[in-house]
C-alpha cells in the first residue's frame, strides 16, 4: 500500500517535472530534428524512457540535462530504426514554414532558415548554449567533446549564421 501511494506521488511529481520542462525539450528536439512531428515523437518516446529510468535521476535539479541526453539518444535511435533519407533543407524549411515564420519579422524567418541550414555539429552546441543555458563545460560533457572544440564550433556556428544574414565580419572574426 505504501508502495502504491509512494508510486502515485512519485508519478505525479515526475509528471509535473516533465510538464514544466516540456516546452524547452520540444524546442530542443525541434532544432535537432528540424521537423515538428518528429520532435514531438522523439520527446514523447523520451518521456517514456525517462519514466522507466527515473531511479537513475538522483537530483531533480539535474533533470533537464538528464532529459536532454535521453532525447539526443532517442533521436539517434530514429536513424537506427529506419534509414532516414537525405534531407532537402529547402523542403524542410517549406514544411515547417508555420513554425519558422515570425508573422511580422522577415528577419527572424531568415535567421531560422539559416539555422536549418547549419550543420548539426554546429547547430546542436549552439542550441544547447543559447536555448538551454548550458555552459561550455556542460556542452562538452553532453557532446563528449573537449572545451576548445566546443568553443570552436560555437564560434563557427555564429560566424556562419552572421555571414548568412549578410553581416560583414572583420578579418579577425573570420573562421
Amino acid at each position, binding site marked *: *500500500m505504501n508502495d*502504491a*501511494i509512494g*508510486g502515485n506521488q512519485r*508519478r505525479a511529481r*515526475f*509528471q*509535473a*517535472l*516533465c*510538464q*514544466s520542462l*516540456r*516546452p*524547452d525539450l*520540444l*524546442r530542443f528536439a*525541434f*532544432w535537432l530534428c528540424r521537423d515538428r512531428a518528429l520532435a514531438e515523437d522523439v520527446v*514523447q518516446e523520451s*518521456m*517514456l524512457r525517462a*519514466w522507466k529510468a527515473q531511479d537513475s535521476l538522483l537530483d*531533480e*535539479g539535474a*533533470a*533537464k540535462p538528464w532529459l536532454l541526453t535521453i532525447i539526443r539518444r532517442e533521436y539517434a535511435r530514429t536513424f537506427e530504426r529506419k534509414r532516414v533519407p537525405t534531407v532537402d533543407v529547402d523542403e524542410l524549411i517549406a514544411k515547417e514554414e508555420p*513554425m*519558422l515564420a*515570425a508573422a511580422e519579422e522577415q*528577419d*527572424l524567418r531568415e*535567421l*531560422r532558415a539559416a*539555422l536549418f541550414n547549419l550543420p548539426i555539429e554546429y547547430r546542436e552546441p*549552439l*542550441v544547447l*548554449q*543559447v*536555448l*538551454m*543555458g*548550458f555552459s*561550455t563545460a556542460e556542452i562538452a560533457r553532453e557532446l563528449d567533446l573537449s572545451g576548445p572544440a*566546443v*568553443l*570552436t564550433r*560555437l*564560434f563557427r556556428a*555564429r*560566424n556562419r*549564421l*552572421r555571414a548568412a*544574414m549578410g*553581416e560583414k565580419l*572583420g578579418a*579577425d*572574426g573570420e573562421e
Partner: protein
Amino acid sequence: MMDHARYRMLISADPHSSDPQLRAHRDGCAECGLYTQQLLRFESRLERALKVDMPTPAAVLPFTRPAAARPPKSWRWLAIAASVLLCIVVAAGIWIVLPGASLAADVVAHMAGEPQAWKLTDVAVADTELNDVLRDSQLRLTGAAGIVSYAASCAFRGHRVPHLVVQTPSGPVTVMVLVHESVSRPTQFDEQGYRGTIVPVPGHGSIAVLMQDPGGTHVRDLQGIIAQLRDAIVWTR
C-alpha cells in the same frame, strides 16, 4: 595581452562571457568593443529565432497507472488516513513555526533548478507566451514591469505558478507569483547565494522576488524592484 583574433573567437563562442580577460581586452580596444556590440545585437535576434512557439497540448504525458496496483482493503485505508492525518498535523506544526523560512527554501530550490532562466539579456519573451503563463493566475503585467525575459508556468507546492525573470539595472530578477501562499509579513531570505523577499499581497497570496547576489551588492535595490513589480501587476479577478 590577448590579441584581437583570440578575443573575437572567444567572445563569438560565448557572447555573454564574464571572463575578466575578455572584459579587460574589450575595455582597452574600441574596435573589439564595437565588434562585441554588433555580436550582442545578433545574439538577441538569435535567441528570439530559437524560441519558436511550442504550445503544449493539455494531455501530453504518456504515463499510465501501473497494472500491478490493486485496490486496497478498507482497514488499510484507515491506516493510510491515520498516517496522512498524522503527517498533516506534523507538517502544519512545522509550517506554523517556520512558514517564511520553508517557503523561501522551496522558492530557492525551485530557482536553482532552472539556471537557464537567469540569463542577462535584452530579449523579451513573446507576449503570447507571457499571457499564457499569467492567465491561470488571473493577472497581467503592464509595460512598467520592464523586460520580461523568461516566463514559465511551474509546478510549485501542488499548484501551477508563474515564474518570471525581469531584467533590471541590477541584473535579472526572478519573480514567482504565489497566489496560493499567504504570508503575514514580508520575509527576507539569503540562501545559497540568492537574496530575496516574499511579500504579502492581500487577497492574492504573495510574491517572491529574488536575485543572484552572493556579495549582497544589489540587495538594497530589491525594495524598489518589488514596488515597481507590484505597480505593474493588474489583477483580473
